[in-house]
């Protein structure tokens, strides 16, 4: 890992804020699983445990006017981008105060204000949308970038190829960011993805700059993203980043993940990005136990408040059923 001297631009406050953001995501997910068990969250719930360093390390390098597009395991990116934990939890519960007004749910978090262009739940679908956002940036001659997340499962979708090729031939300002957590739902990538162990090299086929990074090391992710970000912003065309990581939980809360070898889970548990960063902060003499305790308490309070806010928030009004289908006209079939 890096030494603190390697990141002189980051002071203690910055570094502890990375810890806080990762911890917030972890505690948010702990609470969301609890609320799921209580029946307050319905449907699918895909938690982000173990991958926090990716969202925090990457999204924090963006400008407010850059764009984020992501997949259905989207709570972590939404929180890292700055959607409040209350708005995200309310969305998970389907409440009117949710960041998508309760219309999207866990897999479809959006914030136009934060250029958070959505969580997408048809695997691979968001890659082509990211390319289009890149086209809009290029069309205007602007210098924003699009950060597009997807998993290793999405690499097997045809849309991966269509989007990568288009972005490459037109030099679109898109960072294709693969969270390589070794599983597409229950299927091991070792069995389904021929390039699973050198996935970043797939971008060679598109003549695209590509990188592999330890996705459980928040500073490594951040460091690489700063470099790639600057290159893509300068007009050099898209880039492909593969972050090696691991889902510490199953595909969704309903999945006990029995298909995973115990030794594999044990290894990756030792790589948990949060204790790893804590150890680093401690070893470098940057943070003390008291610092962590203070942050943990604040995070815990925030998550409790988010759950209370969500639970006490109103359901959408019945009339909201018909709102927002079209911008220009009422939905069809509204009872008269």
């Amino acid at each position: 890992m890096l030494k603190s001297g390697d990141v002189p631009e980051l002071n203690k406050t910055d570094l502890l804020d990375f810890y806080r953001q990762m911890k917030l995501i972890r505690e948010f997910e702990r609470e969301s699983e609890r609320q799921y068990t209580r029946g307050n969250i319905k449907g699918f719930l895909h938690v982000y445990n173990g991958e926090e360093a990716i969202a925090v390390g990457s999204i924090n390098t963006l400008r407010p006017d850059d764009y984020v597009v992501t997949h259905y395991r989207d709570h972590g990116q939404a929180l890292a981008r700055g959607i409040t934990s209350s708005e995200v939890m309310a969305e998970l519960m389907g409440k009117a105060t949710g960041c998508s007004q309760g219309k999207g749910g866990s897999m479809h978090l959006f914030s136009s204000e934060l250029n958070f262009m959505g969580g997408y739940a048809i695997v691979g679908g968001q890659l082509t949308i990211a390319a289009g956002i890149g086209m809009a940036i290029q069309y205007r001659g602007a210098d924003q970038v699009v950060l597009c997340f997807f998993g290793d499962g999405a690499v097997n979708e045809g849309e991966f190829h269509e989007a990568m090729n288009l972005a490459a031939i037109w030099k679109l300002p898109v960072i294709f960011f693969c969270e390589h957590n070794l599983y597409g739902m229950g299927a091991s990538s070792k069995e389904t993805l021929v390039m699973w162990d050198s996935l970043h090299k797939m971008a060679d086929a598109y003549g695209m700059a590509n990188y592999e990074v330890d996705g459980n090391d928040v500073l490594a992710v951040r460091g690489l993203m700063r470099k790639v970000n600057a290159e893509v912003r300068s007009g050099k065309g898209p880039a492909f980043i593969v972050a090696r990581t691991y889902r510490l939980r199953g595909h969704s809360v309903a999945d006990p993940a029995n298909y995973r070898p115990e030794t594999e889970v044990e290894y990756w548990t030792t790589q948990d990005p949060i204790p790893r960063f804590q150890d680093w902060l401690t070893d470098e003499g940057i943070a003390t136990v008291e610092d962590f305790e203070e942050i943990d308490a604040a995070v815990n309070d925030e998550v409790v408040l988010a759950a209370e806010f969500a639970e006490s928030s109103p359901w959408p009004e019945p009339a909201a059923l018909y709102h927002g289908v079209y911008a220009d006209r009422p939905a069809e079939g509204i009872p008269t």
Partner: protein
Amino acid sequence: MPVITYRDAVSTALREALDEDERIFLMGEDIGPYGGAFAVTKGFWEQYGSRRIKDSPLAESVIVGAGVGAAMAGLRPVVELMTINFSLLAMDQIVNHAAKIRYMSGGQFTIPLIIRTVTGAGASVGATHSQSFEGWYASVPGLTVVTPSTPKDVLGLFRTCRDLNDPVLFVEHILLYSTRGETPAPANFRIPIGQAEVRRTGKDITLCGYSRMALVAEQAAAILADEGIAADVIDLRCLRPLDMETVVNSVKKTHRAVMVEETTRLGGFAGELVSQIQEAAFDYLDAPIARVAGEEVPIPYSFPLEQLAIPDARRVAAAARKILNRPA
């Protein structure tokens, strides 16, 4: 009124869009130097350049998906799927994303995207290139589905669609590009979406179709007129939003109706029309509503077989006589 071809009407509508709105760009397969598979964008690339006329790879999903993304980021793309058959390769983007992002985001994002495509059989291009899927797309909330049958409707409807903030499937018919028709001269001439047109009036029976089948219904009405039967002919022009008021008012007058469409009967759009007519005007009906639709087969290549698979004026007239109890 100037007489122009359906192809010229599409080209004119696109040129106006490019000239009047800097946020509009075109993207599609072979729309650049090649000039478009149906020569609609001939000369565009030379005139507007590659920034506004984007010749895309053969990759339907990213053609539509990138259109969605660009629309979310504030542009107003007009993308082309060479035919509606190829739209199957972009269906995820059309149905799961373009149609739903506005609703799923609680109204935060709008998708002002026009997807132009080409429907229809009769061009001797075989089963995979001769289908009519516009009725499928009409079943998707969030989409607008427009099916112009004349140069006038192309111009009037495209000008309207250009200003919409929702995704539109603008469905042109493969056999209509060289047909000619009068178009009103004023540049501000527009046709609202969701407004059917009564193309001919008569008291005895209602013939209703869309896209090329509206013209076939009109031809059938001419045959019937020679036999002393006066038909109302309705061109729906849009499948979503759907103007049932015009159809129902006509049926209340004529008491009999024939629905004409090019796609198969089972699961076709005509079934929806029949259902809505009987819900709204059951007591006015003097006979079962007839349907003339495509045969339940893949469209064959061989010319005489293909002709058997698609409705024509003769069959529409026969269906009308049957429910009027007139001898053939």
